[in-house]
């Protein structure tokens, strides 16, 4: 019973095919028969060569992509919800409270300052602006974003700075489940280590993580389990 209690995410028989109507109804199968579970405090690393569908799988788990078959069960407020068949309202609620996602690139919003962008998830949750700002400042400091940049919109920042803002925006909240798509790809060593530390802090507090990390150094420091998407595809 103890074991069942620990599961946070259960993926079962997931399949994804893109159908491109405007290119002669071309079918692009990406994966099928993908099944795995992730427990609280685990970090499952998705591996496989580029183009095997790791990012697609991560986006499918976030319900950003629709899947053709299979289930994505998420432990949301102590109930199991299948994201693959959930209503848009349920998906939004799960994304707000349970499931965080760090994409490869920051989606900049015109005119919104870095600090406001990072605070936003907490404000949406109903937290006081003052508290949210204090938390955001702490996180931006940890990620070495210079204070002089906090009041600027991140549109003009470097790739590495944008990526760190993106990470801060998700990690500011304690999501029970985190999906990470190469969060350290364009970071220098110091910043990479700061991000590793933050992710491990979350994992030690019981966050279940599914991530893609190309860098072996990062994989070894964060990952606790490995799932090879490529092998799974060959087996299926």
């Amino acid at each position: 019973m103890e074991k069942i209690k620990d599961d946070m995410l259960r993926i079962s028989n997931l399949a994804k095919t893109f159908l491109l109507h405007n290119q002669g109804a071309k079918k692009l199968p990406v994966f099928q028969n993908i099944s795995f579970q992730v427990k609280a405090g685990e970090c499952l690393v998705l591996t496989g060569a580029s183009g095997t569908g790791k990012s697609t799988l991560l986006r499918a788990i976030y319900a950003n992509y629709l899947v053709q078959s299979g289930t994505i069960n998420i432990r949301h407020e102590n109930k199991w919800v299948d994201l693959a068949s959930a209503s848009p309202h349920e998906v939004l609620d799960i994304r707000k409270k349970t499931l965080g996602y760090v994409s490869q690139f920051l989606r900049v919003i015109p005119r919104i300052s870095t600090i406001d962008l990072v605070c936003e998830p907490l404000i949406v949750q109903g937290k006081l602006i003052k508290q949210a700002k204090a938390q955001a400042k702490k996180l931006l400091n940890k990620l070495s974003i210079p204070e002089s940049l906090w009041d600027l919109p991140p549109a003009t920042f470097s790739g590495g700075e944008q990526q760190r803002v993106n990470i801060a925006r998700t990690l500011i909240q304690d999501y029970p489940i985190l999906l990470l798509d190469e969060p350290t790809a364009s970071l220098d060593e110091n910043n990479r280590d700061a991000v590793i530390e933050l992710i491990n802090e979350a994992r030690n507090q019981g966050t279940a993580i599914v991530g893609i990390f190309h860098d072996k150094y990062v994989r070894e420091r964060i990952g606790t389990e490995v799932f090879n998407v490529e092998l799974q595809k060959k087996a299926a």
Partner: protein
Amino acid sequence: MTNVLLSAKNLSHHYGSQVGCIDINFDIYPGEVLGVVGESGSGKTTLLKNISGLLQPSSGSVKFDTRVDGLKDIYLLSEPERRLLMRTDWGIVFQNARDGLRMNVSAGANVGERLMAIGARNYGDIRNEATDWLQNVEIGLERIDHYPETFSGGMLQRLQIARNLVTKPRLVFMDEPTSGLDVSVQARLLDLIRGLVSQLGIACIIVSHDLGVMRLLSNRLIVMHQGRVVEQGLTDQVLDDPQHPYTQLLVSSILPV
């Protein structure tokens, strides 16, 4: 789950033999932003008029969660009841701000008028509220007594938004609120709408053909093509993994900057 705020069932509209929209079904919940996209002539504006009480649909029903009686068909309400609804719980932001404003009274009066329509009578209070709202939409207070005629396009649109939001409606309909504005003005307006909607928890139905606007503002998206809804779902899912041939064409037609 909270109650449905507005519900459209089997809604169709015909202009003689011309099709406006066909068999539209959707619900909107409090605090939610619903986007409607589609090319010109796809029936977006007809649908918006149908559901906002401006144009009775040829068939089907539009129900709204009224404060007193719960869910009621808006076209079965009496004329005064419907007018009251439009003045209190609803706001309509027109594509052309001149359609939603009174051009021959001052900016302050445009905002104050809606307050008076729901019973406000104290001149000082009305003026204070109007002042607050002009500040909210970033219109300088020195302009409060000026006629809208002297305002730029972006200011007119912001004034129209202030006029609509001053009575704290529960649902706002917006028809292409940012089209015809240059991009810097558009960014400012989007930022403003986004902030106000989330702060006040207003539900919003926004019609636009600008997918960038939709990604920024809406939670859910409805895609219309030739009068029908061809796809609906979470905004990011519809834009990143479109299923219908028309949506795929629409998404792949955006020019990258």
